[in-house]
């Protein structure tokens, strides 16, 4: 059977008429949605402290004080959840030469001329960018977040360092929300993508159009499948 290069264990052709492809297992999807929900909760609670005009959002969490102690704990959950996701997916998100070609022909991506783009594995440059942006920003946010977690770490860093941590935390938060907007937008804009994280399956056409190397690898792996 063809060796896996572009696909995760578990990725497979589920049916041939019509073609349906398994993209994410149940645990990965659960993992993704825990991360997604915690990130949204963190954004909402963080907004309350970001600007006075958004302070009313703290009401969603039971007031300013509750929001203040809850936010870091949600952050810990997000960090652990994302790390689990990271361990499953990092291998398929390593940048390759074809990603740069894809990026340099970004105009064709937007205008829908995907035939002019290189064939791709499980992820394209955009998806890989979101993955690594999330990874680095979450790392920066958790580290700066602990530094400003006054309830438990009042003496961890000096006042000067904590000021830098506060600035870093808020700038990174803005960046991660921009990344989140990009992620949500791309998932909706590219029709057929969302179901990968809902049912776990995508159509063959979607896989052929956007991730052909991945589909081909899975197609070739079918040969020994009857014995499995």
């Amino acid at each position, binding site marked *: 059977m063809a060796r896996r290069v572009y696909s995760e264990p578990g990725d497979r052709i589920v049916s041939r008429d019509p073609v349906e492809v398994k993209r994410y297992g149940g645990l990965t999807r659960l993992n993704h949605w825990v991360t997604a929900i915690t990130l949204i909760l963190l954004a909402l609670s963080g907004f309350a402290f970001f600007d006075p*005009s958004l302070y009313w959002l703290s009401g969603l969490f039971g007031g300013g004080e509750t929001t203040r102690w809850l936010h870091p704990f949600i952050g810990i959950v997000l960090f652990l959840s994302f790390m689990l996701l990271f361990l499953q997916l990092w291998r398929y998100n390593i940048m390759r030469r074809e990603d740069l070609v894809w990026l340099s022909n970004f105009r064709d991506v937007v205008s829908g001329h995907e035939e002019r783009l290189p064939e791709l594995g499980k992820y394209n440059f955009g998806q890989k960018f979101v993955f690594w942006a999330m990874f680095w920003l979450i790392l920066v946010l958790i580290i700066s977040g602990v530094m400003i977690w006054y309830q438990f770490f009042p003496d961890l860093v000096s006042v000067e360092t904590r000021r830098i941590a506060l600035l870093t935390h808020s700038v990174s938060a803005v960046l991660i929300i921009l990344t989140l907007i990009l992620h949500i937008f791309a998932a909706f804009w590219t029709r057929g993508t969302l179901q990968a994280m809902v049912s776990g399956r995508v159509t063959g056409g979607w896989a052929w159009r956007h991730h052909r190397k991945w589909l081909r690898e899975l*197609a070739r792996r079918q040969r020994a499948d009857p014995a499995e």
Partner: protein
Amino acid sequence: MTVSPMMDSPRTAAANPPVQPVQGNMGQAAVVRSSAGGPVAAEPTALTPVAKLIDVSKCIGCKACQSACVEWNDTHPEIGANVGVYENPLDLTPDMYTLMRFAEYDNPDSGDFEWLIRKDGCMHCAEPGCLTACPAPGAIVQYSNGIVDFIQENCIGCGYCVSGCPFDIPRLGRADHKAYKCTLCSDRVAVGQGPACAKACPTKAITFGTKDDMTALAAERVEDLKSRGYDNAGIYDPEGVGGTHVMYVLHHADKPGIYNDLPENPQIAGVVENWKGPTKTFGLAAMGLAAVGSLVMGLMTRSDVEAEDEQRAADMVDRAADPAAPPEEQV
């Protein structure tokens, strides 16, 4: 002497309290600035600006001010252990709003060994860093007489004020998660009395009155110190924070750092200004534009999978599954 209850701000801390009932004048009506867009008075009562003057050259380090502070504010500082220094407690705490800090200074110019004692506590800045940093509406307010006060019921315990303060003054309670600091005895000043520390000070090293009176008194004291050989005596009323409503007379005003790291030119840190300023403005703008932009683009355009994509996928999958089939055509 008894302070007239009609007087808007007390002129001294030494006077006895008024004997007739007095309506406090430092309520919401006198709030000129409030953290995170909290409520301010539309037409604030114009109270005469007040100031506390701490003349370090007169201080004998008796800590009566600390005792008076604890007594008036009814705080219960933890009983510590003697570790061989004069400071007690070792630092400001949520229960100790003011602290005598002792420094031993070997004066290289005179060869004298000097004992410099500074009463540390909130400086009541005209431009308060704590208020700038605070995210909770109305948790930190500034009154028209210059007093900066923490309103604990609005405080959420985030500790941003600690990072905002150029003097490292606010402290968070470990049990109630509320920030505390010197109130300049706002609850006494509101009813015509001076701060407890000033009232208790046996040498008048701490005096209280209008900012103008205190500035004039400070100038007198500086002149006196200069006449006695302290050429660098001066007033500490730092411009970087717009001036303060707690001022010092220092015999070495050219070197405030020797008084247990009194900052030479305190101001709200650039990092804090950037955090509370451009980060918000640009951040909100960027997030708003991204959200609206992607919504518009998402409504106007989309990337669809076409029927022929499905067919090609089926071809690819069928061909690969059938060992006898010819290899997939290159597309």
